[in-house]
Every structure is written in structure tokens, then in C-alpha cells.
């Protein structure tokens, strides 16, 4: 019979695949989040919302792993026990057409499991995804994405621009609620720093909100997550969390640099009198004027996508 060599191969290959997975998992945990590409779990965020995602991921993993083991175990049992070569020669399989109770069981079981997963997800969702809009943030940064880079406008009025594969960090203070108001000048982008929290899209036409409350100083990488053109992969992000004193120093130097750059600050358009034509849209980002309503409202009209606008912000 041809069954036997196949059985041997099945017995060897399936555990091999499982073994491979486990080796990878252990290698990853040994690497301790060190960029091996083998992390078996979402990063344990350095911000409460990121950490809640981590907890939720672990929670979902309990039924997920159990179901995985159960079903793969059943499949292996079927493969090993019920192959024709192992059955008696005159074996007649039982002709079951169904079993009401069993079928109800494996309808209700998964239903119950997804109910609890849904419930815990909803609790996290309600706690962490409304905070940005309702709370009063300590630092409110306006993030504008463009092809291909980021402008971070701080409440003090200065703007940090970042482009290219060696991004300029978004500097934030530790222990403070930092809110990002996300906005795009052109196409849709996505803001993601895996080690802090989840991601949000930057959609032209309205603002999205996200927040961090980073508990320790550090520097983390991130990137644009929505295909936005040829330079999509260059839209790297760095976020640098610093102590309060360092943050104050950062603000001071940034403001000084802005003042030194002269009247037409790097983040805003030339003054109206210098504008070549009245049609030039006011391309400065709204956040450049402190005190502008911080509520998540549609952007003021006339946000032009003119090359002048982009040129001004990246210069």
C-alpha cells in the first residue's frame, strides 16, 4: 500500500512545521524585540493604549491557541486513525448524516467565544479610542502628512519637518498626554509607531486623533502605512520621548531657530503682502496659529495642494 510512506512523511512533516514555528517563536522571545522580524506578539506599547492592545492580543490568544490545537489535533487524528490502510479490510464506515446536538454545540461554542472577544475588545475600544477627543491634552501636536514626509506643528507655533529615510524625530515629553491631530495635504497616509500604540490614517478633508502617554524616555521607529506613491517607503517616522527638562530645552531651541529664520517662518506661507497673487492659498497648516480651535473639525477651506504650499513647509 502507498499509505505507509505517506504516513511517515506526514508524521515527520507536520511536526516539523510546528517545530519551525516554535523555534521562530523562541528565537524571537530570545531576541527580546530586537528587530529579528520574528516577534510572536504585538509590541508591548510604551503608552497605556498600546499596552492595552498588547493585553487584548494576549487575551485573544488564549482561545485562539486552544482552538488551533483542538482543530489541528482533530485533523491529525483523522489523518492517522482513519486512513484506509489502517482500517480492517472489510471496514464499512458508519453512515452518519448529522447529529443535531453536536451541530448545535459547535455553533454555540464559537458564538460564546467571539462574544467574549467582542466584549473585551469593545471595552478597550471605548476606553482608549474616545480619550483623545474628550480629554484635555497636555501637548497637542498637529501632524500633517504629505508626499513624502511629515510636518509636526507644536502648540508653541514652530514646525518640525521630517522627510526621507533618516527622519527627524517627533519629540514628545514623557508622562504627558500627547494628542496628535492627523491631517493630510494630498493623499491618504497612515501614522504608525508600533512600540507606542496603534495607527491612524491621515485623510485629506478631516482630522483624525490619536494619543500617547509615554512612560519612559526612548526613541522608536515607525512609518507611513498607507500606500501613498513612489516615495511611500521613505515616509519613515521617529518618535523621541524625553524628560520634561529636555522637552523644555527642545522647545526653546526650536523657537529660537524659528525666530532666527526671520519673519517668514519656515512653517508658514509668506506674509500676505509678499504673496505673488491673491489666488495663492493660505498654505500654512492651521496648527501654526496657536489658539485655533483644537476640536476635531473639518479643516478650514482653501487648504491648497499647490506646490508652493508644499515647498514652504519642506524648506
Amino acid at each position, binding site marked *: 500500500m502507498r499509505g505507509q510512506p505517506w504516513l511517515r512523511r506526514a508524521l515527520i512533516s507536520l511536526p516539523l512545521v510546528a517545530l519551525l514555528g516554535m523555534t521562530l517563536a523562541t528565537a524571537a522571545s530570545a531576541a527580546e524585540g530586537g528587530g*529579528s522580524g520574528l516577534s510572536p506578539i504585538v509590541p508591548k506599547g510604551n503608552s497605556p493604549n498600546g499596552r492595552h492592545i498588547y493585553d487584548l492580543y494576549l487575551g485573544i490568544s488564549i482561545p485562539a491557541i486552544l482552538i488551533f490545537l483542538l482543530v489541528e489535533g482533530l485533523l491529525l487524528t483523522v489523518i492517522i486513525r482513519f486512513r484506509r490502510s489502517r482500517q480492517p479490510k472489510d471496514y464499512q464506515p458508519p453512515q452518519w448524516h448529522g447529529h443535531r446536538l453536536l451541530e448545535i454545540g459547535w455553533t454555540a461554542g464559537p458564538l460564546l467565544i467571539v462574544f467574549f472577544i467582542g466584549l473585551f475588545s469593545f471595552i478597550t475600544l471605548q476606553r482608549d479610542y474616545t480619550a483623545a477627543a474628550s480629554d484635555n491634552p497636555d501637548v497637542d501636536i498637529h501632524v500633517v502628512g504629505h508626499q513624502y514626509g511629515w510636518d509636526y506643528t507644536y502648540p508653541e507655533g514652530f514646525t518640525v519637518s521630517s522627510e526621507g529615510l533618516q527622519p527627524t524625530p517627533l519629540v514628545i515629553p514623557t508622562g504627558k498626554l500627547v494628542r496628535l491631530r492627523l491631517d493630510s495635504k494630498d493623499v491618504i497616509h497612515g501614522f504608525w509607531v508600533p512600540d507606542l500604540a496603534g495607527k491612524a490614517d491621515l485623510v485629506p478633508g478631516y482630522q483624525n486623533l490619536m494619543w500617547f502617554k509615554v512612560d519612559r524616555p526612548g526613541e522608536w521607529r515607525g512609518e507611513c502605512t498607507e500606500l501613498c506613491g513612489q516615495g511611500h517607503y521613505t515616509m519613515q517616522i521617529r518618535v523621541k520621548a524625553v524628560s520634561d527638562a529636555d522637552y523644555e530645552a527642545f522647545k526653546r531651541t526650536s523657537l529660537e531657530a524659528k525666530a532666527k529664520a526671520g519673519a517668514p517662518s519656515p512653517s508658514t506661507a509668506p506674509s500676505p503682502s509678499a504673496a505673488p497673487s491673491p489666488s495663492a492659498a493660505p498654505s500654512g497648516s492651521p496648527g501654526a496659529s496657536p489658539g485655533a480651535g483644537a476640536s476635531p473639525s473639518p479643516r478650514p477651506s482653501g487648504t491648497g495642494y499647490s506646490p508652493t504650499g508644499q515647498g514652504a513647509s519642506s524648506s
Partner: protein
Amino acid sequence: MASVLAPPRPKSYDDTFFKPISLWLTTTDHKLIGIMYMTTGMLAFVLGGILALVMRIQLAQPNLKVIDAETYNQLLSAHGTTMIFFFVTIFMTGVANYMVPILIGARDMAFPRVNLLGFWLIPMSIAIYYAGFFTGGAMDAGWTGYPPLSTKQFNPGLGVDLWAFSLILWCVSGIMASVNFLTTIVALRAPGMKFSRLPLFVWAQISTSILLLAVGAPLAAALFLLELDRQAGTTFFASNGGRPVLFQHLFWFFGHPEVYILILPGFGMVSEIVPVFARKPIFGYTSMVAALFGIVFLSMAVWAHHMFTVGMNIYVETWFMVMTMLIAVPTGIKFFNWIATAWGGSIDFQVPMKYVFGFMATFLIGGITGVYLSSVPVDTQLHQSYYVVAHFHYVMVGGSVFTLLAGTQYWFPKITGRMLNKTLGEWSFWLFFVGFNGTFLVMHTLGLEGMARRIYSYPGGFGEEGWGATNMFITVFSFVIAASVLVFIYNLVVSWKHGPPAGDDPWGGNTLEWATTSPPPPYNFDKVPVVRSNMPLRDMRADGLRPPLEHQALASHNS
């Protein structure tokens, strides 16, 4: 072996493959159209696979510049579009085109000429899409083509227009096929073939057709509006006054059910194959059908789970999250029913059955990662990362491709009259199983660690150094998949010409296709069969109209 039902076939029909080209071009025979669909799909599979291999070479190490970023974006868009629209859907339509009329005891589809037109729209659609590569740049905004990136302002080239036009044609063809399937199944069943006796593959085709009928038109509409934005200056989706997110809603209202359009026929094939090789009836026929329709309903209520990061109201997100999680329930019913069907059976692990078990082992992983992704908070971490790439390949390859390979292995003897080479079949299965898992398993971990999808390169230098090794691993295994597909296609081509004759019923099947000759005569049955149960071949064996199973020359001796 002399068939009891079918007298010798007309001479002109003896060899399906070598027919004059004029016959292929003008035939309205559902079987020949089915073969053309399947051939087109298989060619698209190879094409899409080559695109993927080029992308894998580009990604093998950090900072490679094998191709440029623009080409990379064109390739990723073409890979997605080709695999989803031109390979899996088309191949599945081909199998259904061939099998549905035979399975229900009909002589042809209800509208043979619509069938012909519907098929010929597909090569046109593919040609139009790929024309982009020769007219200054194909579509480069991903297979999803989100505006504003796909609007004229940011994408002035012809590629997006060709993509939109190509997919509108594809929708028209899909709607034609769906209407045709539904009419055929409702109107042309053999005497006694009640709905309660329909093979589950036919039920799967009913649900697929309903889905495509419901969501094909919205996709065409979305693309049409996008074209208006591009060509007529409207602002449905353009960022200056329009709503880019509206396109995403319309696109995914099609896009998510499309996933089920790809997988439900595969579920149907599995439901046909498991009982035959386990020598047991399908477990829970009624709940299998109910689960299909549960999936049809739910799949149209989950689309915005692709959009959890665009900034929706959290209660709206909760609705889509819960609906998405609920899909695990009918899918779970099907899974457990298949296992119960096999349980206690006398299972012959022929190559089709191996593909079926490969499907269950891998699709399970895709299903489980789907539950993680459905949870909104977790999704905000995983969305648009390689975790998602891994997830949907586990669903689409682990699900659809494994099953369609199983179906091909299962029905090849019927379609060609010849057996596939068993050794080559085993090789193609094991290479595919190992290559697939090797390629996609570690994509999960890359995504968990923060590698975004659709990136041309990853810079390294800030924690991503180690990604190079993992990506190299993936690239190597992607070539194992390629080897498997080569073996598979070689097997198809060689066995079609030289394989041992299959006879009418090499597997000991349960359904009507095994009651006719291999390949079936032009009108499928010389005498319309009468159906008494959902396993008509068993009844025929009991009545002495077919040789009993014990004497069946099983395919295992034919290798």
C-alpha cells in the same frame, strides 16, 4: 470500461484538447468554456506568481534596488488584481461552468451565448489591464486603488483608467455568469434533483452567484464614479470637496464579499471531496447550506473592518467588529462538519484529499488571525502590516488556492478522461504545503514587529536590521511555491496527453458527473438521469446500474 448510461461517444468529441481553434473561439458548450476559463485563470496564476517573485527578490534584503519604486508599486497592484480578479475568481468560475450543469443533470447552461460572451470579456479585461505596462505605466495605487492617490491630480497616467475599465468589464462578466448560474440551477435540474438534493458544490455556487450579483454592481459604480472624477472633473472622491473614504466604503462593500466569492466554491469542492474519499455521507447537509447563507449575509455586513483606522465612530466600528467575529461561527460549523464527515471514515489519502487536509490545516490559521484582526484595537496595530499580508494569503491561498488545486486534482480525470500522475501530484502538494507555510508564516511575525505592507524597501538601521534574514527566508520559500506550481502545471500538461485512462468513475464518486463518460459527451448525458437522493451514484450502484464500489478500479492503482 463500458458505461452503462452512456453509449460510445461521437468520434469528433474524443479528444477535448486538440480541437480546431475555430471551435474554441465559437463554442457555447459550457464544458469548453469552462476549460477556457480555467486555462485563463491558470495563466493569470503564473503571471501573478512571477510578479510576486520579482517583488520577493526586491525585498530579500534591506535597501535592494532590483527594480525601482514605481515599478514595485505597479507590480504589487498587478499582483493583487491578477490573483484576485483574474486567477481565483476566473478559475473558480471555470470549474463551476464545467461542473454545475453536469452536477445537476443539465445539458448546458441556461444561456449558452451569454456564457460565451461573459467568458470572452475576461481576456479583454486582462488585456486592458496589462496594456498599462505598455502605455507609460500600469496602475500603481494598489489593487484597492484608493483615491486621492488614484485621482488624476496624483496619478495622471493611463494606468488607473485601464484598471478601472478592466474591472468594470470584469464586473459585467461576473454578473452575466451569476445570472446564468442561478437560472441554470433553478430551471434546469434533472428530474428528482430537488434543492434538498443539490450537491453542496452547487449550493456554494448559488451563494457565490448571489454575492457577486449583489456586490459586483457597486464595484462597477465606484469605479465609474472614480472615472468621472478623473475624466469629467467631478469630485465624488477627490480630496478637494469629495470624500475619499466613500470610495473605500464602496470598494470594500464589494471587496469583502469578494473574499467569499473566492472561497465559497472552494468550500463546495471540499464538501464534495471529503465524503468521496472518506466513504461517508456529508455530515450535517442542512447546517452546511445554512452556514453558506450565513456567510453570504454576514459577508455583506462587515466591509468596514478594512477601514478601522480611517476614523469612524466607535459604535459603528463595534458593529463591524461584531459582524466580522460572527463569521467565525458559520465557518466553524463547516469546519467541524468536514471533520465529522471524515471521522470514522475509511479515508483514502489520494492527492485531492491531501490538498483538502492541507486546506483545513492552513485555512484554520487564516481564520484565527482573522479574529485577531476583527478586534478594532488589535487591528489598529496590525492593519496594513505584513501580519495582514500573511492573514489574507492564509485565507486566499490556504483557502481558495488549496481547494481549487484539490478540485482540479479531483475533477481532472472527468474533464480529460485521464488520470494525473500521482507521484508528481504528491510532489506538487508537499512542495506547495511547505513552500506556502515557509513563505507566509513568518510574515505574521514581521508584521507584529512593525513591517508595513506595500513598501518597496526597508531601510534598516533602526531596529530593522534583523528583518533581512527573515525576508530572505521568505524569498527562498516563495521559490519553493513556484517550483510546486511548475510541477503541477507540468503534471496537467503531460497527463492530459499521456495519463492513464481514467474511466467514468475513478474515485467512486457520489454525484452525477461520475455517471457520464470522461470526458462527458457534448450534451453531458445521453439519457437524463433521475435523482432519488443527494448521492445519486450510490443509488445507481444499489440498482446495479453502476459497478459496485468494491470492484471499482481505484485511482491508486493507476499511478
